[in-house]
């Protein structure tokens, strides 16, 4: 139970972080969203064996972390949360792809290379998404999504889900507490109660959804979600976006680490 309540309070860390006033935080939300989307596209577009090219893309999260003055540890922990899924997806690669790959004279199976590529790619994409929320906040992000003409129903769904996760978790915590108090010496919930517990929760969810919708209607809600005005996109915002897109494009076309490497080795010679 304590775990659920703790994660509840930790969950809003990203929101708290998004209220800082750094260079990155002050950027226009739409610009940050577009930059993140282009970053994700570039990261995903790399082939299975192109680890070298991916390395230069580490620059983006590092820059955002630094300029946005974000704490590394809590965000890193959140990335670890998704790692079991990623490992689950990639772990079979080394067993199926047995071709040999030469890395600085050492022979390794190509499966391990693809596994590593998956790890890096997912690490980078998840980090980028988390950084976007931590520097923009859910509300402004929703506003930016609306500016991109994403249908309002999806945006609203996203926002309300985000808001009510906490209420649902409180409800779950309360139900579980009530259960555990009357079911001593049991680990977790016995399977005979799973159905009714989940059923109760879903019924309560319906009830609450109905009441929230009524509360929204009473305050003039007609289906459109208004986030309030945004500031104009400034030249600085645009140059931030263009700068990064240029860098992503270069990083995609040229293997920057290799170029730097050969440059250095060339100089040494």
């Amino acid at each position, binding site marked *: 139970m304590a775990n659920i309540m703790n994660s509840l*309070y930790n969950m*809003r860390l990203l*929101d708290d972080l998004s*209220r800082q006033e750094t260079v990155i935080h002050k950027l226009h939300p739409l610009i940050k969203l577009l930059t993140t989307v282009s970053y994700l596209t570039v990261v995903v577009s790399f082939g299975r064996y192109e680890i070298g090219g991916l390395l230069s893309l580490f620059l983006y999260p590092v820059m955002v972390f630094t300029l946005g003055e974000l704490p590394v540890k809590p965000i890193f922990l959140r990335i670890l949360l998704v790692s079991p899924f990623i490992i689950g997806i990639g772990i079979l690669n080394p067993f199926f792809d047995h071709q040999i790959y030469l890395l600085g004279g050492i022979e390794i199976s190509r499966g391990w290379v693809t596994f590593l590529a998956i790890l890096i790619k997912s690490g980078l994409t998840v980090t980028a998404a988390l950084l976007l929320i931590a520097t923009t*906040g*859910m*509300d402004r992000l929703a506003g930016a999504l609306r500016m991109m003409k994403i249908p309002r129903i999806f945006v609203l769904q996203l*926002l*309300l889900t*985000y*808001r*009510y996760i*906490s*209420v649902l978790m409180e409800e779950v915590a309360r139900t579980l507490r009530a259960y555990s108090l009357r079911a001593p010496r049991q680990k977790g919930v016995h399977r005979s109660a799973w159905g009714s517990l989940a059923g109760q929760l879903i019924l309560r969810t319906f009830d*609450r959804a109905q*009441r*929230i919708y*009524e*509360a*929204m*209607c*009473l*305050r*003039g*809600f*007609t289906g*459109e979600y*208004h*986030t*309030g*005005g945004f500031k104009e996109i400034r030249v600085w915002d645009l140059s931030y976006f263009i700068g990064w897109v240029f860098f992503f494009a270069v990083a995609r076309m040229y293997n920057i680490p290799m170029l730097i490497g050969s440059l250095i080795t060339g100089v040494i010679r």
Partner: protein
Amino acid sequence: MSHHKLEVKDLHYSYPDGHKAVKGMSFCIHHGESVGIIGANGAGKSTLLMLLMGVLFPSQGEVCVGDVHVTKKTLPMIRQSLGMVFQDPDDQLFMNTVYDDVAFGPRNYKLDEKEVEKRVLNALELVGILHLKDRAPFKLSGGEKRAAAIASVLSMQPDILIMDEPTAALDPKSRRKVMELLTSFKHTKVITSHDLDMIFEMCDRTIVIKNGEIAADGVTSEILVNAELMDACGLEIPLALQNCPVCGITKV
């Protein structure tokens, strides 16, 4: 001002399962009045509020706000002049910050962002939680949540405030604060509650509901001391008027 009047004429409502929740209620609440609506659980208080707000529509009879009938067409107008504070603030605070929540109503009425800001800050100041404007609603205490919920309604500048159990689940000090806050408003107020002491202090007029019908409607100080009536309606006279448990002095 006639447009602050709230009139209910021969109101009937049945739920889809056939349960008759409201059976022929009629009353008129005038500008500036503070009216308490009391009754046992299941007497029909919440249904009545839903009918007043146009969340439900009566099967017979009508609700008029000012001279306007509550119908689907007039709802946007009606809801601007009626503000309702829900019993559970968590139902009412659905945005990610208190500021956005209070701004939700004004923004829906497409007010200019400057005007929205003015109204939000004003409402937050009025309920005394201006310092909480950037906090997430779920991190607030019960009393703070209640205040935020009230602010979210005040920002729409309603003429009539309708409140469902405004003091429920509050500690004594927070309860007192909410009561002082509500007393300071000049709006027409309709309050449903089981907190009869609060009704006794805050409302000049009380309507008692029993099984979907009006059992009594009159001056609070006369109705709430009527032990026989209270008992018949599943209620009790306010605790403050009951015999003192220490010295045993009879008050009424």
